């Protein structure tokens, strides 16, 4: 398969090692070559609210770094990074004035944006370049009988104008198809598109937790065995967040939360410890045992 620059971002390599390791294991199993680029830094997203221009330059710098290495494809497991890098990439490709201004400043660092890379989320790359069919063929342990609730994460889908080939943000299918490729049943549920609230956490924790709680309440009405997500921030809210919600909002939820590469890894027959499942904050042990017995 192909070769991709792996944009790990700031959060995942420090706080979501289970996501990082599972993505790499799955890539290895599917013959996808992920290249680590030491020069990659912050994608710019956190400073967008402070100063748009700073965000633009931070983001564009990463794109230049990849371009200068002759890399055509960047993939990232973080929806925040994917959204920001895609948005900036597209804006600079389409807007010559913006590009000129950015290049004037980046030239001081010896960089020039030329618009020669493409940015995608890891899951979208799996869907586009490997495809559900090939994944299904690679599955050694079909997860039949499991009901999995997909959580896409806002910036995986929106704003649609940020992406070169966006899917319908109201009826997204890619993650559901990827879940089905493992043999599991992808649940159709009403709260699928709810925002995790992660972006509000630094400003107002209670509001953020209430937003996350909303999804759990709705999922309680479904036969979901687990929630699957593809973003380190959504994981902060839904995986680590379940305990916080219990402490701060006095409402207990016990829904196992996994990253998609962990789910896929289990279906590909990769050892659960190698997929970092022992690092998940929600209790996934029973689910893993259940899968082992399948």
């Amino acid at each position, binding site marked *: 398969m192909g070769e991709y620059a792996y944009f*790990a971002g*700031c*959060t995942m*390599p*420090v*706080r979501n*090692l289970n996501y*990082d*390791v599972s993505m*790499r294991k799955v890539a290895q199993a599917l013959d996808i070559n992920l290249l*680590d680029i*030491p*020069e990659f*830094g*912050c994608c710019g*997203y*956190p*400073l*967008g*609210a*402070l*100063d*748009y*221009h*700073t*965000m633009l*330059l*931070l983001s564009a*710098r990463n794109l230049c770094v990849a371009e200068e290495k002759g890399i055509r494809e960047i993939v990232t497991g973080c929806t925040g990074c994917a959204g*920001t890098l895609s948005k900036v990439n597209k804006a600079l490709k389409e807007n010559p004035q913006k590009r000129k201004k950015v290049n004037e*400043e980046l030239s*001081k*660092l010896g960089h020039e944006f030329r618009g020669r890379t493409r940015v995608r989320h890891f899951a979208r790359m799996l869907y586009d370049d490997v495809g559900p069919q090939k994944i299904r063929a690679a599955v050694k342990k079909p997860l039949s009988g499991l009901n999995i609730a997909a959580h896409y994460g*806002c*910036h995986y889908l*929106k*704003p*649609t104008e940020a992406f070169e080939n966006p899917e319908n*943000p*109201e009826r997204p299918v890619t993650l559901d198809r990827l879940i089905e490729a493992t043999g599991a049943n992808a649940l159709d549920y009403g709260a699928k598109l*709810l*925002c995790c*609230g*992660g*972006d*509000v*956490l*630094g*400003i*107002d*924790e*209670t*509001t*953020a937790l*209430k*937003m996350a709680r*909303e999804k759990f309440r709705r999922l309680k009405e479904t036969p979901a065995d687990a929630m699957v997500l593809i973003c380190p*921030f959504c994981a*902060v809210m839904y995986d680590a967040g379940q305990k916080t919600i219990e402490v701060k909002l006095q409402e207990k939820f016990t829904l196992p939360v996994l990253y998609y590469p962990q789910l896929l890894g289990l279906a590909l027959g990769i050892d659960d410890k190698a997929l*970092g499942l022992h690092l998940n904050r929600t209790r996934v042990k029973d689910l893993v045992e259940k899968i082992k017995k399948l």
Partner: protein
Amino acid sequence: MTKGSRQNGRMAEGDEDGGSRQNGRRGRQVGVPCCLAALLPCCPASKILIAYLGVPKPDGKMTDTEKLSVLRLEDLDPNFRQKIAAEPGGEMIRFCFQCGTCTASCPVRAVEDKFNPRRIIRMALLGMRAEVLTSSFVWLCSSCYACQERCPQGVKITGIMGAIRNIAVRDRLVPAMFAGQVASLKAHGRVYEVGELENEKRAKLGLPQINEMPDEVRRILEMTGAEELAKGNQTPEANQAAAPPPPQESIGGA
């Protein structure tokens, strides 16, 4: 009932309410219906008009609700909408026709009444610059883009929230978390430090080591003056009200 009489009927209803308030009206204050208030920012005579959506009681004291409903034209900034429109992302603000699709789609609104995107845009269009910029609610947008994707007028609401935040920052109204984020980016080139401890944890899982390369990120931050921007000197009420979350839980905003 003719169209005219129906309108009169409606006005009479309004008068009932306004009439009781008018007892307390003093001086040259002029009560205007809410719909007129929308036009006032563009009115050249606005300097001498004081528009009240509510009028203080005879003792001069206002209830909290009245305080919120009073619009003084002298406090409004008729250019605020232009300023927002000049920011990247804010361009489409004038196209808003107040249908409320944004608020109906908003997951923050669903759990917190304080946040109402339609109201923020309305306030911005009216020129309520000070109220908008000093409010806590502009920082509550979760940047999920649900509203923006659904807006029938193509208003980039998430972009507008970003534009308003950027303006607030330049007015030195900055949530406290940004100073820490910029400091971390400056020192490490990333939001979270990757030190020995983190690399040890990574090694245990067979993950490659990360060596921080903060130089270029730091130079960009110096070029744009981000550190100075993040300092601020007035804290929006959000930070006074909410207890600061532990630093490792802060994600940032857009």
